[in-house]
């Protein structure tokens, strides 16, 4: 599975109590911070383990993150990380082909994984009694993956079909792929996570094994477990299963080289326009600006800005373009996608039937300069904060939501409880800050305009400069 957007818009974490005060009021009280009940241990080999007990039901969520994604692939090996993710389910030394998922499903669990530009995540929902065996299964495949040649070839065909499903037969997926390629052109984010067809065709077992040996090491991983488990009982079991796995050699240096900020400097041609043939009979478009990497205050402000302008039927963009007497668009959205080392701030829209893409483009691009003046006010800011808080509950109600969020916060901020701080930051964002950033991004920088339509020629488009 490929997940296109990790951390898109908002990432909510441990903030339950602080939501109690002030939500849905114009002048909220300052929220009181709370402490999460999470046990954290870092093993000698560098593996970080997080356990969040929740005795409500005899079930658990088991998450494992490896800090490797599409960004570590080079031309010719695009898709290797995702290919490896598929192969992780096809057998290891102790639990051979077919045994991994059979054991999990026979015990009532479910297992899957996703790969993004920044990370590869494996996850299971399982009966709590199965957690020790889950650790054994995970420890086995991390150390002793088989990568059997026959299974490797059949999985290659599976991935081709997945690629068609996600991109070639999905106009939205295709538009997103082309936007990412153009916005991040020349940087490690400018590649298809699922892989280009030529690369996937040529990718060898040895190349995938190389990825596995390089990046699937305990000091490059986080395990997060939430559910009906006792940390005091479980931690020794996890230490036994994972503790003897050797840490990486040279990975820190390799990652430092790959993550060098110079690699992520903008190289795209902002101000350009691209049009692509896709199967949609009504044109779709994206307007993409330079965004912000995750974790900075600016990233939080851009999150709030995206929400204020574009979230919900009452939002400025929905009212201006979709819900009025003469709608220009059938759908519109705005997202701030904050990756680890860069980001993109982008609008998506779909025309009404019979609409002209040229006319819509001209009008929309002309309107953008007015968004900051017309679309932002104190009530909308408070509405956004209320929505963020309300959504936070939804995220934390399940074991999977809990495990996923503490794991991601540990990875990005080195602090599993960063959600509390996140909420403080969101609550502290002022109207002036949002307006300033709105002006900075929409009025002082040029976007890339990308559209798809089945009336465009199937050949690659010509590059057109935006006026």
């Amino acid at each position: 599975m490929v997940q296109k957007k990790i951390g898109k818009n908002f990432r909510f974490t441990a903030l339950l109590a602080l939501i109690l005060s002030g939500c849905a009021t114009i002048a909220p009280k300052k929220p009181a911070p709370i402490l999460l009940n999470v046990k954290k241990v870092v093993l000698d080999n560098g593996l970080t383990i997080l356990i969040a007990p929740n005795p409500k039901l005899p079930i658990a969520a088991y998450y494992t993150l490896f800090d490797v994604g599409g960004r570590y692939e080079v031309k010719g090996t695009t898709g290797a990380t995702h290919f490896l993710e598929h192969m992780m389910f096809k057998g290891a030394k102790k639990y051979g082909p077919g045994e991994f998922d059979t054991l999990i499903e026979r015990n009532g669990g479910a297992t899957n994984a996703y790969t993004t530009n920044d990370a590869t995540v494996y996850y299971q929902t399982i009966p709590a009694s199965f957690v020790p065996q889950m650790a054994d299964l995970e420890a086995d495949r991390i150390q002793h993956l088989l990568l059997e040649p026959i299974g490797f070839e059949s999985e290659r065909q599976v991935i081709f079909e997945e690629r068609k499903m996600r991109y070639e037969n999905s106009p939205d997926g295709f538009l997103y792929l082309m936007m990412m390629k153009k916005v991040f052109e020349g940087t490690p984010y400018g590649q298809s996570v699922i892989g280009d067809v030529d690369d996937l065709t040529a990718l060898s077992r040895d190349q995938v094994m190389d990825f596995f040996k390089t990046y699937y090491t305990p000091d490059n991983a986080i395990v997060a477990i939430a559910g009906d488990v006792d940390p005091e009982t479980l931690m020794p079991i996890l230490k036994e299963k994972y503790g003897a796995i050797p840490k990486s050699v040279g990975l820190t240096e390799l990652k430092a080289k790959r993550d060098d900020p110079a690699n992520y400097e903008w190289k795209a041609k902002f101000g350009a326009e691209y049009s692509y043939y896709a199967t949609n009979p009504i044109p779709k478009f994206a307007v993409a600006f330079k965004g912000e990497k995750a974790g900075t205050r600016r990233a939080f402000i851009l999150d709030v800005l995206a929400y204020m302008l574009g979230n919900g039927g009452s939002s400025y963009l929905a009212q201006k373009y979709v819900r009025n007497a003469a709608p220009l668009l059938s759908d519109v959205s705005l997202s701030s996608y904050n990756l680890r080392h860069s980001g993109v701030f982008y609008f998506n829209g779909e025309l009404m039937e019979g609409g002209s893409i040229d006319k819509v483009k001209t009008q929309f691009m002309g309107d953008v300069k007015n968004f900051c003046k017309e679309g932002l006010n104190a009530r909308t800011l408070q509405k956004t904060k209320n929505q963020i808080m309300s959504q936070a509950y939804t995220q934390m109600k399940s074991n999977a939501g809990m495990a996923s969020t503490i794991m991601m916060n540990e990875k990005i901020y080195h602090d599993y409880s960063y959600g509390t701080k996140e909420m403080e930051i969101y609550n502290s964002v002022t109207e002036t800050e949002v307006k300033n950033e709105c002006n900075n991004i929409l009025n002082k920088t040029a976007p890339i305009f990308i559209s798809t339509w089945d009336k465009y020629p199937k050949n690659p488009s010509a590059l057109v400069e935006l006026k």
Partner: protein
Amino acid sequence: MKTKLILALSLCISFKTFAAAKIEDSIKHLKWNGVDVVFIEDNRFPTYDIVFYFGDGALSDDKGRMGLTQHAFNLLDAGTAKLSQKDILDQFEFYGTEFSSDITHEYTTLAMSGLSKDLNTSMTQACSLLREANFPAEIVKQDLDKERSELQSLVANPQALSDRVFREVSLANTPYSYPVSGKLRDLDTYTPAALRAKMDYFLNTVKKRIYITGPKSILSVEKIIANKCQFKGNSTDFVRSITYKKQKNKNSQIVFIPLPDANQVQVKIGRFLNYDEIGDRKLDTLASEFLGGGFTSRLMREVRVKRGLTYSIGAYVSSQKQYGRSGIATFTKNQTVNKLVEVINDSVEKIKKDGITSEDLERSRGAILGSHPFKFENNRAFLAQLLYLDHIERPYAELFDFNSAVMKYTASDVARKIDEVYGMRFQTIFILGDKSIEGELKKLSPKLGKIRILDFKTFI
């Protein structure tokens, strides 16, 4: 084998103990102004979920104006005499309140969730919409124009298009084949007066139930529901029930829908299930799990793992009170569609011929037993299950006795059920893909029936 049995029993015991002590006892039955209310107290979060059930659905729509029920509920937020659509949406969104409806052929639900301290405010607004929505013509037109646009775009979404067409084709000549949402030709018939009349019918004539979960304090919403929504219940409230002639199993047929330039073929195989074929839902679940549930199902192993023919494949039986439908859903590349269909056919035939092993059975049984507690993790999902059981007139005990009931099934029960439901001799084999595969598909005819070629536009 012994280990597996012990494991299964331990799951059974641990959940049963848990269920008896906590979950089952947490369900409270109340009566608000004659309306049955099911309440689950949950103090973990200061949030609520509330669902209104109405005992009628799309079957209430008249020919020539099908889809009216769905649009009446979906357009509740279009406006009232006092509030514009923008005001209404802004109010809900300001409080982070989710407000949505779901319409089936047999019943309708209206759901709302949010922070418990805002429930009374949001419910007051929801009641005003139910009672006062006037469906302003210009807003209705905007929404329908948008819907027309979306329907025209279905051609670019082969999976969604095939879902829509397959449902209608495989349920043809039954009362349930027409889409709940109506078709393009119906959209012009949704006038403000018709939408209001439909809403009044649901409010004043149809049986209602209320399902609610959250802290005990949210029960104060009773007064608002009684006074503002004016919900009241009595024994004469209408519940949809129809009489239809039992459908005879038809010989298998291949339905081909050409889609220009499609580089992937959507394949769906299924049939209508009569009212007397859906009585054993747990066995349906177990059989579907074995055949097409998860990564270790028979079809996933045969089609994806062994042959790399697809990315995903699944099998399901879904049923309401009076009917059901079965389906196998997958996709593949143009060149391998015949092989895919043949592998599915052979897999189902092999189960009929050879049965399934006890090990196979234990894997599937373990899967559905072990995953059962997950149905209670989310209270909204839990409420939905109680609502469903009430709708099909089955006791809640089915939920809590699930494990012991599932333990009774044998391997031959499962094999027989797979043959009854998924046996290829009765199926509609639906294929949506590029016209160039038509010649290849004809090679399947001798074994799997005649090919009918239909235009997808007929179904939009």
